[in-house]
């Protein structure tokens, strides 16, 4: 069966037969409510991108991401920057839905939620994988996707392998297991990185 003229969407007759066999043996499960909510968040991001005429799969070849630590106390001007620089498009951060953040040269990220370390973190090292999804936080927020790494284009929802950690960053830490779902949002002028779970934290550890 040929479902489309796109190689991406073309399916063979064998695939169709295999799918039918699979369905014949399938006992349908219930979708967990939390997952349904996440899917709806993804759907809104997708529809938002579609509405703006943007392709969710589009990306930049190379982007520098700058992440700013949130000061422990806002009054302190203790801004520190870690510069992400993925060579050869090893990783690219891109925006959909009209985000203002994607300049191609730098994206600032901040927020205590984003960079607060926690004792419950387990380390994600260079070979670890995790998932990125979209979610719209509010009317002024635009969903974003993280792309890149050594296996080519990565879109929201796909696994990302940090084959190349940014200079100055020893490891990326995230709550719970490496399979945790991370949600990345553009929150006005800031990038917020969160892991779903009880505390939603991600931290960067500098060399």
């Amino acid at each position, binding site marked *: *069966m*040929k*479902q*489309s003229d*796109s190689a*991406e*969407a073309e*399916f063979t*007759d*064998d*695939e*169709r*037969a*295999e*799918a*039918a*066999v*699979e*369905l*014949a*043996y*399938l*006992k*349908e*499960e*219930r*979708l*967990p409510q939390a*997952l*349904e909510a*996440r*899917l*709806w968040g*993804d*759907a809104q991001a*997708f*529809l938002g991108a*579609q*509405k703006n005429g943007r392709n*969710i*799969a589009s990306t930049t070849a190379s982007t520098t991401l700058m992440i700013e630590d949130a000061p422990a106390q806002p009054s302190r001007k203790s801004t520190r920057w870690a510069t992400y620089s993925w060579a050869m498009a090893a990783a690219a951060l891109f925006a959909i839905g009209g985000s203002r953040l994607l300049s191609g040269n730098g994206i600032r990220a901040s927020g205590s939620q984003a960079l607060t370390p926690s004792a419950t973190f387990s380390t994600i090292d260079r070979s670890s*994988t995790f*998932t990125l*999804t979209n979610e719209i936080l509010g009317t002024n927020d635009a969903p974003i996707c993280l792309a890149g790494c050594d*296996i080519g284009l990565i*879109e*929201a*929802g*796909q*696994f990302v392998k940090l084959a190349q950690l940014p200079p100055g960053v020893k490891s990326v830490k995230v709550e719970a297991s490496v*399979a945790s*779902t991370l949600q990345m949002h553009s929150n006005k002028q800031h990038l917020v990185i969160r892991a779903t779970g009880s505390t939603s934290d991600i931290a960067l550890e500098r060399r």
Partner: protein
Amino acid sequence: MTQEQKPLLPRIALGDELATRTFIKRYGGLVMSLARRHSGEDAEDAVQDIFLELWRLAARYDETQGSEVTFIAMVARRRLIDRRRAKQRRPTEPLEPHEESLTSSGSVYETSHDAKQAARVMEQLPQIQQQVIRLSVLEDASHGEIAEALSLPLGTVKSYIRRGLDLVRAAMSHDSKGAS
């Protein structure tokens, strides 16, 4: 799922929010089941991945070419196989063929005409051939792994799968011609 549901993918392709929400509710369990079977503990991540792919491909679904549920299963299976390959996760333990019965009740079987056709064909095959096809399709086992697990010549495994899928395909093709 009910028997007479109209496909949602064409509406999703037009940006229909309600259709998108309904799509999640209607097919979430189906996709979850597929992901659970092929992805195990990564199932929830796989489900998100698959849905995004389905939305992206929504405009390319052609209902004259097949049912929506079969299209979804094809997209899901391809994605799940891609994910497994990307992670290079192969089973380390030897394959242990287990009996898996055809779903004689349940929403997928009840509502998918293609699944019924496939079940009808499978039931008519010898047990050993059914087992070979199950290991290939449901367990993603390679021909070599199946040959080893069932102590069969590799050529026999290949021909069992080839002939079995040909029969399923013929049944589905015959059915769709009869319907049109």
